[in-house]
């Protein structure tokens, strides 16, 4: 029996050293050296202060900014830590809504979101990404359709011509990788930073 136990114990220790210590630490060292920006979370600084990550969506509610998709992330309720409350874009607690397609909660949520959006742009059908929760709750992107839908509201709030805001959106569409992979998308934080630069 000892004949089998010794290799088992030594092997798991050896593998822990190689794959659990040497490998991740070596990758960290190389990553910090070669890709320091990405390795540290693609953080964006404005005037020296970190305002977020280029890859992580953040909440925008002001009419002057493009809004991200709905987010189903939660945080513990400060009044009662055994319960949770909805806190959109909580980037330390990623989560989707996990609502199924025949869920009343899902359908009434979409109905409410759609009603809000219809008030700001009644002429256009509402792009589905603007009324549905992303898988991570941290989606940094909206579809080009979702950005264009919000143009009239932002133009009005900032006193800009529709055409200027629309051109800004079109200039910020990230195309498919090599024209094939993924879907065209617009990074909301990126677009909002460009908006602020435009309006200064």
């Amino acid at each position, binding site marked *: 029996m000892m004949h089998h136990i010794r290799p088992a114990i030594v092997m798991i220790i050896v593998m822990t050293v190689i794959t659990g210590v040497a490998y991740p630490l070596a*990758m960290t060292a190389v990553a910090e050296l070669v890709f320091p920006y990405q390795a540290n*979370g693609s953080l964006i600084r404005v005037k020296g202060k970190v305002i*977020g990550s280029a890859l992580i969506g953040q909440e925008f509610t002001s009419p002057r900014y493009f809004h991200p998709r709905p987010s189903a992330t939660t945080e513990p309720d400060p009044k009662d830590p055994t319960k949770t409350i909805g806190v959109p*874009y909580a980037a330390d607690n990623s989560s989707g809504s996990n609502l199924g397609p025949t869920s009343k909660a899902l359908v009434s949520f979409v109905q409410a979101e759609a009603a809000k959006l219809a008030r700001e742009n009644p002429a256009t059908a509402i792009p589905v990404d603007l009324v549905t*929760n992303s*898988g991570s709750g941290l*989606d940094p992107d909206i579809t080009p359709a979702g950005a264009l839908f919000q143009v009239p509201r932002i133009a009005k709030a900032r006193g800009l011509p529709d055409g200027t805001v629309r051109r800004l959106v079109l200039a910020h569409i990230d195309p498919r990788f090599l024209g094939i992979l993924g879907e065209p998308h617009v990074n909301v934080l990126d677009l909002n930073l460009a908006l602020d630069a435009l309006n200064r």
Partner: protein
Amino acid sequence: MNHTTINGWVQIALFGAVLILLTRPLGGYMASVFAGERTFLSPLLRPLERGIYRICGVDETDDQHWLTYAASMLIFSFAGFVILYGIQRLQGMLPFNPAGMTAVSPDLSFNTSVSFLTNTNWQSYVPEQTMSYLTEMAGLTVHNFVSAASGIALALGLIRGFARRSAAGIGNFWVDLTRSVLYILLPIAIVFALIFVWQGCPQNLAAYTHVTTLQGGSQVVAQGPVASQEAIKILGTNGGGFFNANSAHPFENPTALTNFLQELLMLAIGAALTNVFGRMVGSERQGWAIFAVMFVLFLGGVIPEYAIESQGNPALAAFHVDQAPSAMQPGGNMEGKEVRFGIADSALFTTTTTDASCGAVNNMHDSLLPLAGAVPMVNIMLGEIIFGGVGSGLYGMLLFVIVAMFVAGLMVGRTPEYLGKKLEAKEVKMAMLAILILPLSILGFTAIAAVLPAGLAGIANNGPHGFSEILYAFTSVTGNNGSAFAGLSANTPFYNTTLGLGMFIGRFLMIVPMLAAAGSLARKKIVPASLGTFPTTSPLFVGLVVGVIIITGGLIYFPAVSLGPIVEHTAMLHHTLY
């Protein structure tokens, strides 16, 4: 109404083409490694390999009987279990813990330890709120490597059963394990970890970043050594995310390129093993026949998955919501999906992650349309043999081949044989036992959870979808997949315990009869092929095996699937909400 796009089909076709092209070169390399031949990495790795054997006290020329091979694997798994359990319980006192995570509860530590050592990577917890960096690296990442390597080793054991003649042993577990890690998993993981960092996956040991957002809100951005775990999570078909949202999280899967590479890595080793199999039994065509069975079943999953999801949810149509694809949006069922992936990439990921025993998700399966949710469920129920988990996919498939050849033998009244080995009562019984263990756990536990208050308490969605959540959970753990209809609140003593048992049964109670069949096959002589031998590289063979798999799966699981996704689908068509 067809809402799929040409681009969507092109992406899926491109994926299939690259997978086919990868199979032979990677299979050739792997076959050389396992034969102990020199490869381009040998000058670097051979001394390390020898050193490992020396300190472990392993004689690499020792050929193990199947019982010894199985015992080595089981004892190794148990040693890993004890260490992983200990790290979680003690993580509060250990280093690399900038977020100050405290000890993981006993039932959750049990569940997580079984989960990672069985290559399931079911996660009852929110990683970024629960696990320290040390637990992620020295605990979970290690098992991502060794559980995958164990799977490959076990597949090699069964292949040798077919390839050898009148042999007492089926190889050496320690050698197969060590070579899998050193020559295959580690080099590929290193390359892809760096590609993932380049694309945006973090790789640091710093504390979470507190930021003041552009609008003036506050946000805590969780980070960590993500890329190194991401690479092996996918490559080893493990699937346990660094973050709760798994590969939907922009830090785990930042771009369409990382997404494509992840889909590919999930199936690459499983596909290459068909070629390794072919080479080891002396005919690559035998490997391609198995590949063909898998590829047909892959297409049978991904095509409906994409077609269904692109339709969108009919319940939303009333609110002036646009779900049709255009140049400006992918449309479709976007609940639980990420914009950068859209529908086609999400459908492909959902299919590959459940064809394999991976269980990573880039979209939330709980929010899939009913029949689109049935596709991943059925993929797992069939045994994850569609390329499958690394190693486990191939040995699962070979068990079905044994049954298929038995059925063919019955039809013509001849003793069935495969690759010159007579399949007799013992092998067929062992194959059936290994196959039938899975539904016993899936359907048995689902039935229990669906009537006990402790089981029903976990449901997040009402109506048939709630039943689907339970069924999916026990299907996922027994199949060692790890994906979830994640609304289910599974971090309770009831679910942590029953799901942990399901994982254990699905892995080990399947492996033992499988190895018994391998041992018995290895001892047999090779019968020369004659006119009466069933040609096992023909389309007829591929069709027969596909048929046996579908009929077996259909007979066992159809009633359960009809109570969940099928009832929900008809409810959706009648605008019934729950």
